């Protein structure tokens, strides 16, 4: 088998945690992946510097999400709340590690979230982040964290919402870029040990010939595997059309190459925020 040669080999998985249900669900999926790849799992809780700073500004009030009541922000209270969250995250992490018997390590860092996550991501093969639900406002944090991850690290970023599991068929956006090939390889890795795995390749190319060529190329990668592979050729497509196409597919996880034209498109970004299945961005 050419399995040995295949890139990337997934050995370390980083999961960024806060105490929210989403991140706990992300933790579950992370555990499954760690088992799947026999990889080390690193849990990271970031004590958000921004929050600590808030308490220092006397004119800022916290408004309760359910009660809609204004409250003074008290530095000591914020510290305490953050500690509670960290402890809860750690507990969940420990329970998971003990139950699934994976190698795990939990860490608490203090600083700006993005900086800390990127710092920790440098030696991880996959970074898993939870996505906030739509009922809660999305701060700039997550978007910027994900973007920074894609731009600044050369790994796989996995965005999870509401604890969705991988699901099949995996949908891979496949174009001429090297990242697309990496994305396909990631998909194959993910599917490798599943029975009845299925894969849908959305082949994006400027013209039909390239599409055909890419399909053949993909065929050589997938041919030896017990997979059902479906091909969708999208020639002369805009990023928006790709986004529409993705939405039409019956799908499990979505795997995207982190290429600028695609990821900078508004439609694609909007899709990413709405989509319920996990999204893996390969960069």
């Amino acid at each position: 088998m050419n399995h040995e040669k295949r890139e990337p080999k997934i050995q370390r998985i980083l999961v960024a945690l806060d105490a929210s249900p989403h991140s706990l669900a992300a933790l579950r999926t992370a555990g499954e992946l760690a088992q799947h790849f026999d990889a080390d799992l690193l849990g990271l809780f970031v004590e958000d510097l921004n929050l600590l700073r808030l308490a220092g500004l006397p004119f800022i009030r916290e408004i309760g999400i359910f009660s809609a009541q204004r409250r003074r922000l008290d530095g000591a209270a914020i510290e305490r709340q953050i500690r509670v969250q960290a402890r809860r995250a750690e507990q969940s992490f420990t329970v998971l590690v003990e139950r699934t018997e994976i190698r795990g390590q939990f860490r608490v860092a203090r600083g700006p979230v993005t900086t800390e996550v990127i710092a920790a991501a440098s030696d991880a093969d996959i970074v898993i982040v939870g996505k906030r639900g739509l009922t809660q406002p999305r701060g700039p944090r997550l978007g910027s964290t994900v973007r920074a991850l894609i731009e600044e690290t050369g790994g796989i970023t996995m965005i999870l919402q509401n604890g969705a599991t991988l699901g099949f068929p995996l949908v891979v956006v496949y174009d001429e870029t090297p990242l697309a090939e990496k994305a396909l390889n990631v998909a194959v890795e993910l599917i490798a040990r599943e029975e009845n795995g299925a894969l849908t390749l959305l082949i994006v190319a400027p013209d039909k010939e390239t599409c055909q060529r890419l399909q053949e190329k993909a065929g050589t990668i997938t041919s030896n595997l017990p997979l059902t592979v479906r091909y969708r050729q999208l020639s002369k497509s805009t990023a928006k059309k790709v986004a529409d196409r993705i939405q039409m597919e019956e799908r499990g996880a979505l795997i995207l190459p982190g290429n600028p034209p695609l990821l900078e498109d508004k439609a694609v970004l909007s899709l990413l925020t709405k989509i319920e299945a996990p999204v893996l961005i390969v960069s």
Partner: protein
Amino acid sequence: MDNHNEHNKTRLSAAMLYQATDPNLFDFETTADLEELTDVVGQPRAVDAMEFGMGIQQQGYNIFALGPTGTGKQDVIRRFFEQEAESHAVPSDWCYVYNFKDRHKPKAIELPAGMGIEFRDDMDDLIENLETALASAFESEEYQTRRQTIMEEFKEKQSQAFEELQRQAQSQGTALIRTPAGLAVAPIRDGEVLSPEEVQELPEEEEKRLEEKVQEIQDELQDILKKVPSWQREMRERLNELNREMANFAIAGLLDELRETYADFPKVVEHLDAVQEDVVEHAEHFLTQNGQQNPLAQAMQGEAQQQKARSLRRYEVNVVIDNSESEGAPVVYEDNPTYQNLIGRVEHRAQMGALMTDFRLIKAGALHRANGGYLILDARKVLTQPYAWEALKRALQSKEIRIESLGQMLSLISTISLEPEAIPLNIKIALYGERMLYYLLWQLDPEFADLFKVQADFEDVMARDEEQQQIYARLIGSLAKRGELLPLDRGAVARVIERSARIAGDAEKLTTHARDLNDLLREAHFWAKKHARDVITAEDVQEAIDQQIHRADRVRERMQEAILRDTLLIDTDGEQVAQVNGLSVLQLGNFAFGKPTRITARTRLGKGEVVDIEREVELGGPIHSKGVLILSGFLGARYAQDTPLSLFASLVFEQSYGGIEGDSASAAELYALLSAIAEAPIKQSLAVTGSVNQHGQVQAIGGVNEKIEGFFDICQARGLTGEQGVLIPKSNVKHLMLREDVVAAVEAGDFHIHAVETVDEGIALLTAMPAGEPDEEGNYPEGSINYLVRQRLIELAEKRRAFSEDQKTGAETGAEKGKGEA
């Protein structure tokens, strides 16, 4: 000579002691040849009453069959009811269903016989189909899409508001920041919150502006957050509306079908409407929340499943009365008429330690089962069951069956309870019981007369003429057939009839106690089988009788033994003054036997008192005392018309340690008294029974056969002398059905039965002296008993006068003496 005549006049011939039934009266070989008897035998009055009671339909004409136990009341009632019931329509089925308006008051629905079960099955099917119909409706793409749309709309509304705010915040150099417990608006630079130092470094004006902006956005954020709950509510309402719409559409078809089937029954249709409304209202209970991964929702799944099962159970139907397999009107005999068995009950089920109930746990009572037909109850049982009688009357008065929990009524348990809708009652009830019960109820319960207007009075005995004996033979045959016994031959039938007369205690009557008759037949069958016969013969019947007696006569044997061993002193020969053999009857269970008792009298000078020692020590009952008082009435009237009765007499039953009741020994007491006064000896070879009146006539008593046999047994054991016999009242002759050995002894002249009409006849027989007729002046001839009695009484009166004059003189002398001394 005179005495001899007296003997012949009163002595009964053997033929008068036993009225045998001639087997040749019957023209069958065995009872197997006889046609079965379907009519009621010997109860014309009760039968008429039953026919009347069955025919009359007005309220309150329920039947009370009164009579001693064992006269077959229950059988007769049942036979009447069953005959009548055949021609009546099968009554309706009754169901209880959930009351959607008031769940504590389940509704009753009446349906034609057989439709109750159908309705139940239809509803069960409906429940099954409901689930699938609702599931497919709620799983349909249409529903899912519309639901998603509503939810999406809400989400969009919310995120739009936040996005708008976010944008606004960003344009002002601020941002929304998630805090552990809420949201905050913070000034931002390069994606990071400004530190306090950075804020301080700002020019004052700038800082103030920043503060104002933050304030402004905070206000807006608060507004938005305040609106979220109402948006959520709106979303839920719209989702509910959608659920209702889908549910209605999904199930309307199913229910329409049922409504069509049951179009003739408005109550069913009404119920179906309510079911539909309820299903639509609670459609969410049918939704299986598969899509939800929320841990709370998962935890709630179990509860939701239970809730769903509970909701579905409400649409079930509880058929309390199912007449699908009935023919004619029901005839119900309730063996155990407790309150609950009569009017039905609501059962409870323990659930998490609490007692729960619902309409499905309503159980029918005997009144429900017999509704539209007939109910037979044992009055004694109804009366001994707490509250049963009151409940029965209430149901009859209100003409409806209302199930009320006894526990609730008495506050014994406090738990959720039901008040099921009352069911109209149309029923004919027959109670049966002893006469005493009927008369007591009549007297003590004012409502009784309104509710049980028909009294069917059952006779203990029936006439024993030739025609009746033929019918009785058929009755015996029928009983044997019904009891699957061997048939009886003619001799056996005759013997059974004779026995029946003996049980009735009257040679001219037959007992109507079916139980005694049945027992005799069954036992005769047993002996016939034992002797390997294929018909029951007279010997078998006799053996059955003998064995019955043998099993019961331990006490009699002990008594006789005591007499024969002279522990109890009874003379059966010789003569004695003031001592007579009286006869009493002891009843132990259903076995009665006679026992001779020595009665003695003592007299002395007195003021005309006859003292009953039994009465003085309270061993004698009032009737016995009455008998003794009649004696003194007789004595005074006959012998002391013109002189004071200057006698004190005491009477006693020797060696009697139990109570004595009845006046059947008053003749014997009188003879003892006359003998004592006249000092004339009485033959101890004779025993006496009979009561007397103030004119000296001897009157009938009960248990004559047992009494004669009781004395005969003693005499026979000591050896019959030919002198021995018993004096019975003449009016008891028709009751004689004596044992074969007694009859044989009389026939041989070894024993005698004398039927006497007056005291004079009796005393003449006992003393072998003439009683003596008074002449025109009221004087009795010398040498007669009456003469001796009269003379003695005159003597006593004179002695008393002399004595009281003596006393008077003595008293006067004494007084003078005292004076002088003073």
